[in-house]
């Protein structure tokens, strides 16, 4: 969906720059970062709908970054984009909770389609969560403070 907030994580600066332009052209808000650490920092401070994550990166690699993201317990969905093309690693990523994977090089339309899918999933989860919370508030109005008082949209 246009207006979605995308965190683009890849160690290739040219790639993140280009991809940011392309995705921005297509109506997304893109924050490009070039390492796993930066990605985690961004996620801690800002809300994102979808993280597009490269697997093979120097320093904190994609799998570790994904694990860290999962620790943050966010609604954000993670889409794996890898040049590695290794099904085993991609499968591992999916096991760890990634939404899906794409192999580089891929067409922008393919990526956009996957981002949309991820956003929908995130949106569904968010809606469901909201529903649950409303239900809880209806049942116990006092809990509204604790449920909606969070700065970030955590689960």
């Amino acid at each position: 969906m246009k207006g979605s907030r995308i965190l683009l994580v890849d160690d290739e600066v040219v790639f993140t720059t280009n991809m940011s332009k392309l995705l921005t052209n297509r109506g997304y808000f893109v924050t490009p970062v070039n390492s796993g650490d930066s990605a985690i920092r961004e996620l801690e401070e800002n809300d994102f709908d979808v993280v597009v994550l490269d697997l093979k990166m120097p320093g904190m690699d994609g799998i570790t970054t994904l694990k860290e993201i999962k620790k943050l317990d966010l609604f954000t969905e993670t889409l794996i984009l890898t040049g590695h093309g290794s099904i085993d690693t991609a499968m591992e990523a999916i096991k760890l909770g990634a939404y899906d994977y794409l192999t580089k090089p891929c067409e922008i339309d393919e990526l956009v389609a996957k981002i949309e899918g991820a956003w929908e999933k995130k949106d569904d989860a968010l809606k469901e969560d909201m529903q649950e919370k409303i239900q809880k508030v209806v049942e116990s109005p006092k809990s509204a403070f604790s449920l909606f008082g969070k700065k970030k949209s955590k689960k």
Partner: protein
Amino acid sequence: MEKNEAIHSSAHERHVDELQERRKHYYSRFFRRFAFLIITFFLIPLLLMGWGINIYYTKFARDRMTSSFHAQVDNHRKIIELFLRQRSSKLQLIANTHSKDYLSKVSNLARVFEMINLEDSSITDLGVIDGHGRHLAYIGPYDLMDKNYSNAFWFKEVMEKGLYVSDMFMGFRKVPHFIMAVTRTEKGERWILRATIDTEVFRSLVENVRIGKTGEVYLLNRKGVFQTSPRFRGKIMEKVPFPVESVHEGTRIRVLEGDTDDKERSISRRIVAQTWLTEPRWMLVVTQDYSEAFSDVNHANRATLAFLFLSALAILIVTVIITKYMIEVIKRRDVEADQLNKQLMQAGKLASVGELSAGVAHEINNPLAIILTERQILLDLMGQTPDLDKDFNDALLESLSQVDVQVQRCKRITHNLLRFSRRTTSVIETVNLNEFIEEVIELMEREAKTSGIKFMPDLEEGLPPLLTDPSQLQQVFLNMINNAIDAHEGSSYGSIHISTRSDDHTQGVQVVFADTGSGISEKDLEKIFDPFFTTKAVGKGTGLGLSICYSIMKRLGGDISVQSEPGKGTIFNLFLPYSPPPDLKESIDEVLEV
């Protein structure tokens, strides 16, 4: 490139030749060493045993032979002494039981003579002689009544000792004979009873003894004169040509070495046993050729030698057979090891190339992704710039489209590389192989037809269904058919035979792809499954097709091999197991769990 390849290939052949040559040396060295060791370890104990047995047996046999010789000599001596003692006892008895006066009467003496010779006629004559050597009476074949023996050598002896047995002598009779005389003292006067012993009877006692073919028995007196005729050399009353040993007690046995006698006749090596009689002092000699006496020993020695020789020969033959057999086994093992090494090398090569490919693919994918994004940016920019020159716009679009085509091409290559490095997953399904092949044929039919190639399937009916990965199998089969079609390039027609045969013994199916194409040279056959090896034109083949097929077949638990004759065609033999190997199943189960 080709030159490099040729140099590499000839270096490889040289290496193989050197290896073969080294192996040959190794085999022959091994043969010599092993044969030497076996022969040494078997022959030495055998020879030692043979030698030991021989020494022991020879000593044993020689001792027995010697003691038997000893016994024979003793027996003969006893017989001779008994004979003589009997005669002397008889004379003694007659002298002691009859008076001189009685015996001096010829008629009485004749009667006594008759009585003595009643049992055996061993006494030729009998005489009674007074103390002065005169004959008082005589009975015998000669006329000796007038003889006076007072000066005869025996007369003095008998008068001194009371009993006398003479040596053989010719005497008045001119025939060899010996006498025996006893004395008796009667009324203070000594008289003599003297008898001549029949030498024929006596000599037959000694001379008729037969010991083998070469044995002889004879008697010698102290002066070395024959008292009986020996069987071979010499005659009675002749002197022996060698000195006679002095009188000794007991029996002596010795071996006389071969020699020649005074008449230049050769005397072979002999064993001689000798013993002295007590009265008279004659030496009894028993002799036999050494070779005959010890013929048993010699025979046994020869038998032992023959046995040793045969045993050694048997060991030699067995050694040669065993060693040859072992070398054959080693050769077979070496060939198997070579094949295994080759497979290992191929696997190692594939593995290392696989690793490399995965790395390369990844590194290429990243710039490719950037190229694609750049292209997309340009496209976006073009979309945002409506007043672009149309020709420029078209040319740019075409270039960008070409960029896309080439990027996709690169992507295919990297995808293949990654596939080759097995970084793709498998999905195991039940596959009806015949139907599957027919589908693949259908897929390729059009392309084959345009090249004038006919498919000739020969599929076994009732083939058991396989548990395998159809997508990977399809890739293999497509590759086989593609290669077969490409092999017909330049010819207007051809055929591809595809056959399936189940084999319950190996629990799998043999699939054969045989084409009538150009074939593959022997040199290329070795490298056919190597990654990046291709004989196709640049840009037409990546050289990965058969490597991928090889990897897939191995991964599916099968096998692939190739035979080819340049100009006639190529046959690919594929083996597919009824069910995939357990490790593949496990990896799939893991993926399916996701």
